[in-house]
């Protein structure tokens, strides 16, 4: 049992936003997905106020021990999400976290208000860090900008607000502290690192979005350092992610100060990765005892 912002979860393993579509996965795997659901809480893909079709393909590039994505936040928009996706996500066997991104504070406020009042929703995650959308980079990289955004939306819902941090910042710990000061209930990190690939033939950018975000084991050591730095800078819980592919690695993030972890890219390799990692984490904890105090090493 894990307690996160007053919500009790059967365990500490979430999915990273945008790395698991429970609705599509149900089409591929059927009810077995719900019977053996991989995560202890489900985080939706980031939604925006207006519908978005996302970036033109190609959207993917494989890198050493990782990948670059340039998806561009395709989603049905607030209305479409509330009407068609939310009811189905509400029937998942675990608590629901909805990720939202606004291109202005007002938009963000509108999203938080509308999503926050729905009973299916346990928490909200503010994506101020998506490297594929200009605003994300600006808001999430700057402590003051982040504080203003959180302050603006704080009043719109009583539900826990998680701020998702970008690693593409000089000082993520300062951004986290600013979010905490403005009323965030938790922070999650890392989002993807900005990256690029060129077409082997033409030497031009491979990705339709020209640049994208790097994820996977390649970024794990970078993510772990940022999680440790952030955990030592804030009192609120930290959700750690970035390249986690087994329980031993998840235990490292918890030892670095995270209360929960999220699995992203590893789910692409194994749809049951979340469940497997939760079990491995359990064994690790039993064998060496997961540090409960934050032995945050920075």
């Amino acid at each position, binding site marked *: 049992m894990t307690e996160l912002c007053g919500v009790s979860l059967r365990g500490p393993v979430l999915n990273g936003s945008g790395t698991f579509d429970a609705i599509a996965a149900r089409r*591929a*795997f059927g009810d077995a997905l719900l019977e*053996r659901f991989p995560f202890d809480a489900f985080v939706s893909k980031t939604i925006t106020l207006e519908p978005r079709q996302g970036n033109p393909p190609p959207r993917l590039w494989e890198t050493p021990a990782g990948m670059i994505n340039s998806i561009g936040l395709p989603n049905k928009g607030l209305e479409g999400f509330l009407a068609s996706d939310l009811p189905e996500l509400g029937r998942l066997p675990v608590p629901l976290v909805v990720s939202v991104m606004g291109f202005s504070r007002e938009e963000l406020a509108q999203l938080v208000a509308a999503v926050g009042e729905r009973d299916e929703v346990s928490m909200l995650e503010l994506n101020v860090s998506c490297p594929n959308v200009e605003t994300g980079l600006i808001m999430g990289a700057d402590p003051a900008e982040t504080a203003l955004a959180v302050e603006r939306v704080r009043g719109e819902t009583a539900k826990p607000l998680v701020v998702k941090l970008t690693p593409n910042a000089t000082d993520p710990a300062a951004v986290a502290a600013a979010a905490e000061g403005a009323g965030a209930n938790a922070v999650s990190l890392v989002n993807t690192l900005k990256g690029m690939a060129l077409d082997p033939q033409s030497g031009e950018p491979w990705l339709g979005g020209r640049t994208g975000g790097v994820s996977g084991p390649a970024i794990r050591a970078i993510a772990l350092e940022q999680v440790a730095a952030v955990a030592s800078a804030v009192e609120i819980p930290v959700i750690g992610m970035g390249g986690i592919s087994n329980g031993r690695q998840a235990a490292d993030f918890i030892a670095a100060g995270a209360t929960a972890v999220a699995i992203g*890219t590893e789910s692409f390799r194994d749809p049951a990765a979340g469940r497997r990692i939760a079990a491995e984490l359990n064994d690790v904890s039993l064998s060496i005892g997961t540090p409960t105090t934050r032995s945050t090493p920075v």
Partner: protein
Amino acid sequence: MSEPRTLAPPERRVAVVSGVERIGAYCVITAHDGSGPRNPRPGQFYMLATEECWGGGSDERPYLPRAFSYARAYVEPDGVALSFLLEAIGPGTERLAALRPDEGLALVGPLGIGFRAPPDGFRPILVGGGIGAAPLLCLQEELDETTVLLGFRSAAHAQAAALFSGEPKVATDDGSVGQQALVSELLATELDADPGATVYACGPPAMLEAVRALCAERDVPAQLALESGMACGFGACFGCVVPTTDGYLRLCVDGPVLDADRLETVL
């Protein structure tokens, strides 16, 4: 008609390689899947990776699993023997082609939506370009009285034609085997002879586009098995989209087989 989709178990499992056979320029990998469904549908695919040493190849790849249509599935007492036809063109396919019997093949699948049955009274024509022949092998076994048209780059590639039953008509770019022609030219001739046909095609984009255009002109119903870069294969990453008349579709959950009339172009 319910969509031709057999559900996959919601986790990666390990099948055991029973054979790796070279067929000209291609390679057939057969593995025993003890815990997956025994009835994948032609056109569905699996995400594959080797259990050991998946990584450390050229450019320090592969990392992600790779998508492969199954070419054949034979039910065995304790599972199913899955065969995949592949061409080694990069770090992932090279590693898979280097598999040896008894090594583990990690897989997720079957995934996606396969080929739909032909409309009543329509004669099925199967059109394959290169490695695109793979999903047509199991499809041919399910349909009766099919015409099979295959196009290959060279004689080494054309050896794969021998995997089909009956007498597939073969075209090669260099004329080393069958006619020196494009497989789409063979299709045009067939359709001229008998417009009451329906087309099932898989192959490189340029070939699929030629097939699409031909069938569109003649109002011949066609199903195309497309490809795109995939990271997950089950709708998680939104990476595999192709533009359709209904906007971007994730090929892994809404395809890989699409009705030709849903595409303005394949290119």
